């Protein structure tokens, strides 16, 4: 349904081009849920804004050769007026911070009926009824009264529910959720993820879930893409990725997830170093300065290593090789325990 091919987005700055997204290809199938995981600056959000064609151009620039095909239509060079018919109607988006992504001076009702008026041409009465249904569908009690409320009269979790209601109002085919739970506290996070999952099942909407938190995608998505420095590091089905991670960066991310079930709590693992400077991308694999498995051939960008089925890792090293592991452990690599992995896969 959505097919992104060799997407390159550069930001032009005075000092040079920042390679925010650098040759990313992936697809989302009908009804599927895809997780995109990576740390800040890995290009996750730029990817989603490229799909919506909402990047500021300039400074951003979608480079030649990039292709984003949605339901047989190329989005990269689509007319703005055509694009507006897709936004909200075909592809909708939820943002990180529900405090700032709702208009503070408009009632919830006015914001809810916006997509209904724009795309479905509903009358005022019809739109009102539909708006109430939507609020009920996302689990907001006393919907009729709450329609007249302003965003500041809702709690953070309730606001995110409102955002979700607005996003699904016109029944879009694809829902892009950009860090939808990052600004919420932990108990509310689970409720919001549960809600997104339930709506996906009920409406048959595809979901693209963007997050920096592997714990969030664990129980949510069918497939996962791990991004690093604007490139894809590894992609696999969710179960496969947790059970059999093959990229050193994925291993690093997995061991950086705090765990509650350790018998002897150890210090939280971190990936040493900091994300690369995408203004001056290094030759070859972008992870090499931080990678405990690093080899001389990492100066060349690694080819796709097909592990099994749709599991692909972009790495020269076979991280399951005991010899390689021994070598990496001398550089401070700590292998994941089985307990940790199964815990992650369940959560």
């Amino acid at each position, binding site marked *: 349904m959505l097919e992104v091919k060799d997407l390159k987005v550069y930001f032009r700055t005075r000092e040079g081009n920042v390679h925010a997204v650098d040759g990313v290809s992936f697809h989302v199938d009908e009804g599927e849920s895809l997780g995109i995981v990576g740390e800040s600056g890995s290009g996750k959000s730029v990817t989603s804004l490229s799909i919506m064609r909402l990047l500021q151009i300039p400074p951003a620039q979608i480079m030649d050769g990039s292709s984003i095909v949605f339901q047989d239509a190329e989005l990269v060079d689509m007319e703005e007026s055509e694009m507006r018919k897709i*936004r909200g109607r075909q592809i909708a988006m939820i943002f990180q911070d529900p405090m700032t*992504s709702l208009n503070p001076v*408009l009632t919830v009702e006015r914001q809810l009926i916006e997509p209904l008026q724009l795309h479905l041409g509903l009358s005022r009465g019809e739109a009102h009824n539909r708006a109430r249904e939507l609020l009920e569908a996302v689990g907001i009690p006393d919907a009729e009264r709450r329609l*007249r409320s302003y965003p500041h009269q809702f709690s953070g979790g309730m606001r995110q529910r409102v955002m979700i209601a607005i996003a699904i109002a016109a029944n879009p085919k694809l829902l892009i959720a950009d860090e939808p739970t990052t600004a919420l506290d932990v108990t509310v996070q689970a409720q919001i993820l549960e809600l997104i999952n339930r709506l996906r099942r009920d409406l048959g909407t595809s979901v693209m879930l963007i997050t920096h938190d592997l714990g969030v995608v664990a129980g949510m998505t069918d497939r996962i893409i791990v991004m690093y420095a604007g490139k894809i590091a590894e992609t696999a089905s969710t179960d496969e990725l947790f059970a059999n991670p093959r990229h050193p960066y994925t291993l690093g991310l997995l061991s950086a997830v705090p765990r509650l079930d350790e018998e002897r709590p150890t210090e939280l693992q971190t990936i040493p170093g900091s994300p690369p400077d995408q203004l001056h991308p290094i030759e070859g694999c972008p992870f090499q300065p931080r990678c405990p498995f690093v080899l001389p051939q990492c100066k060349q960008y690694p080819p796709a290593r097909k592990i099994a089925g749709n599991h692909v890792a972009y790495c020269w090293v076979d991280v399951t090789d005991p010899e390689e592991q021994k070598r990496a452990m001398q550089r401070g690599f700590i292998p994941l325990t089985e307990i940790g992995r199964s815990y992650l896969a369940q959560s």
Partner: protein
Amino acid sequence: MSTIQSEQSPQAGIGVELTPELLRKRRGQLRIIFDRFIRNKVAVAGLAVLALITLAAIFAPVITHQTATFDPNTATDVYHIASGPIPGHPLGTDYVGRDEVARLLFGARVSLLVGLASMVASIFIGVSVGALAGYYGGWLDNLMMRVTDAFLAIPLYLILFVLAATFTTGSGSASVIGVIVLIAAFSWPATARIVRGEFLGLKEREFLLAARTLGANDFRLMLRHILPNAAGPVIVAATLLVGFNIITESTLSFFNFGVQPPESSWGTMLATSQDYFSEQPLLVLIPGVAILITVLSINLVGDGLRDALDPYMTER
């Protein structure tokens, strides 16, 4: 639409105690602004005076017993010229024997009409220019703001006098429309600057990106999403403009460039009575005080609105 079932909210059923703070939060935004305005006694007094003046202007024909054959605004009492307060003429008569109360009330109609109408036109131009400049930025912003600067650099009364000489030569109501157009044409730049500043800040806010993801076009974003957020400063600017425009109109009329006879405004009343100041100072004082009270009330209301609309105002 596929089936979407209602979900039992986890929050439902948990009794949340409604503290006074929570209750306050539940009030609508307009309500909060209204409450804050009401607590400002001076502003409320200004509003009351303004309402009284407006009502008196609207019902001027009734108050002065205007009929099809009797126009108190023009009828002269030749036995009483510049009389001062006497029975039948509570504020006296002017230099040709017209009732001063009638002149004042009918003058109020013109003054208020000019003040309001030129404000509406001025705000329309100012908001349009400011919104386009702030929203699109770039060369359009540069062009529009330089034009705005140019307008601000023109000595206001000089250009008004020059243009009025050709614009408001028509008599009666034609001159009123001329004055409205003239004042509007030169009072918009301040509003444009305010609105541009608001739009510059607001267009980067995340809720606009969110509105864009729903498929809203630029026009809709400006009108329905940004403008309501800029309503506070615009309302305050509009209020103060009414007062400013009434003064401008009076000044123009005082120098005979404004409203032309037989139509009268407070400014023309001032102008025509100044020759008789030594004999009957009341004729100058009455329209002068009327202008003072009206503009003062408007400005008090404007200040009250500014405070009520400012979210960072500390509670008094």
